[in-house]
């Protein structure tokens, strides 16, 4: 049984500069309790994919394909049906805990709001549950804290409150969009630990969106690498990080400086990917990575590659994956 099925999802946005193809033919599925990471750089379509699953795309977005939650087709839902699903079956944690909380309401009220919306609770029950929830996400003096306003909390505490809001109705699916980008590393560790603990405890499916490979590796089992709106490589965390096959994935992995406590990499040059992330309005006709890829041929530039199944957990959309893998094996590291 699957919890979430995304089938050939495409999202485009009508902008003043033209039509931007934000997501192209994205497909994946997720069982209950599964964890999936979507990794990529700015403009790769990862946030748009998440917002599509939540039905919160901007008004100028056009969506095709299918998203099914427990076999219910979400894209054909009415607004009222969406409202019933959001915050109840699917919940989301956003990137900026600073601006994602309403500054004029106390946090307790912001958490309870979602509870009252989806469940028939008495005020006392909701209050009790909110206190328990705040304790679950690791906020001390919960009964006192829920009267506080967002500006009275630290960044880490605010993100904990955001998580509490997401968990208010024990959703089946949690989407986390860059949940730790705005916080310090020590807080990041705590927040990731908390999310990890909670998805086990609540048995939720998780879709984690991040540009940070470290965050992805810490939380999820399966990864989709997106580039220019396209899933270029899909696989288990171990496969993607140790045996990547797409030239972009390989390039990305080798471009990250990492702390290696045994050897010194200092003064060594990092391998780089030349060029810049493409403009969504003006995408290469073939493979989206073709204009930055050293292996690109004319076919790459004109015909988009179809994903090749390498193993049950590994799919790559590249014509030259054998050469890319060979290069990676003998690579600079």
């Amino acid at each position, binding site marked *: 049984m699957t919890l979430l099925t995304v089938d050939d999802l495409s999202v485009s*946005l009508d*902008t*003043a*500069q033209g039509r*931007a193809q*934000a997501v192209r033919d994205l497909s994946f599925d997720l069982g209950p309790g599964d964890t999936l990471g979507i990794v990529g*750089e*700015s*403009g*790769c*379509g*990862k*946030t*748009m994919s998440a*917002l599509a699953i939540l039905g919160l795309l*901007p*008004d*100028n*977005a056009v969506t095709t394909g299918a998203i099914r939650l427990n076999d219910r087709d979400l894209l054909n839902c009415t607004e009222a049906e969406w409202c019933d699903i959001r915050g109840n079956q699917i919940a989301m944690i956003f*990137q900026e805990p600073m601006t994602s909380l309403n500054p004029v309401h106390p946090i307790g009220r912001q958490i309870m709001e979602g509870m009252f919306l989806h469940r028939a609770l008495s005020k006392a029950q909701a209050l009790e549950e909110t206190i328990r929830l705040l304790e679950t996400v690791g906020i001390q003096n919960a009964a006192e804290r829920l009267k506080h306003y967002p500006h009275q909390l630290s960044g880490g505490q605010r993100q904990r409150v955001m998580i509490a809001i997401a968990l208010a109705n024990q959703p089946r699916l949690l989407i986390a*969009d*860059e949940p730790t*980008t705005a916080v310090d590393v020590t807080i990041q560790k705590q927040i990731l630990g908390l999310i990890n603990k909670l998805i086990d405890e609540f048995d939720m499916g998780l879709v984690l969106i991040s*540009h940070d490979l470290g965050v992805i590796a810490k939380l999820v089992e399966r990864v989709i690498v997106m580039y220019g709106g396209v899933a270029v490589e899909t696989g288990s965390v171990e496969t993607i990080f140790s045996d990547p096959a797409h030239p972009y994935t390989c390039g990305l992995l080798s471009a990250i400086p990492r702390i290696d406590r045994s050897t010194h990499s200092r003064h060594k040059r990092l391998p780089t990917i030349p060029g810049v992330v493409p403009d*969504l*309005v003006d995408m290469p006709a073939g493979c989206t990575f073709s204009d930055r890829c050293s292996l690109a041929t004319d076919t790459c530039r004109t015909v988009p590659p179809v994903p090749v199944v390498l193993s049950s957990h590994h799919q790559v959309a590249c014509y030259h994956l054998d050469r890319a893998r060979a290069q990676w094996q003998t690579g600079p590291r």
Partner: protein
Amino acid sequence: MSDKRLPGNTLASHKAGRTVASAPASIWRRTLEHRSFLAGSILTSLLAGMALLSLFWTPHNPTRINIRQRLASPSLEHWLGTDQFGRDILSIIMTGAQNSIMVGVVAVGIGLLFGVMLGLIAASAKGWVEELIMRVCDFMYAFPVILLAIMLVATLGSGAINAILAIGIFAIPTFARLARASANAIWSREFVLAAQAAGKSAIRITWEHILPNIVSVIVVQATVEFALAVLAEAALSYLGIGSQPPTPSWGRMLSEVQTLVFLNPWLAVYPGAAIAMTVLGLNLLGDGLRDVLDPRLVYKR
């Protein structure tokens, strides 16, 4: 990095403060496509053209009294008819445009010059200087323009000059606040820090970085203030404390015909419509300019 750079209206990076536009080519395209800008410029040029024309030619002498022709209906000779003294209404309205433009230019000039200067000083000096300038501006806000004009007129006597002065003084705090707020926003940007790190003085930074970046906001505000000045002058003249006879003025026309509106309503319609069209044109122009010059700059009235 998130997907913030994605285009799209609700998720677009409206607070990222990134410059998306202002390339010369796109400015022209936006200008031509902007309907309210076009409408505003047409109305405003009409006003300016009318004033200019009246300097050389009007159908009749706007001040010549002709009792036999009084309250004439529109005719070939008098397109809009005549008033209670037999003066040609079209000619008065045309000449009245001069008055409105003069008031607007001088009053906005006073407000712009002193206001922007004070605002820039406040933003670059910070500390108690900023506090002082802003408190004085707050204080001036407590005096509505009419009240200020009334006081000036009470002390210095009636007359166009005092009215213009009052309107101009009233515009100072608006420009000062706007200039300070926009200048502060620019001062907090890193390129100003870079200029400071390069060793540039506050005056040079203000001149080279701050002013060019806030000029579009100021221009937009100037058109809006121009409109407000025209309105205020009309109101003051209507009350009899603005421009004095025989200078033709739309506001005074309205007060002169007030008792006659029951006989000939059109007498009241023309000058009012002239004021409304002028103000509308300037407001539309300001709105258009705001979008055309810089779509990202936040503006407050």
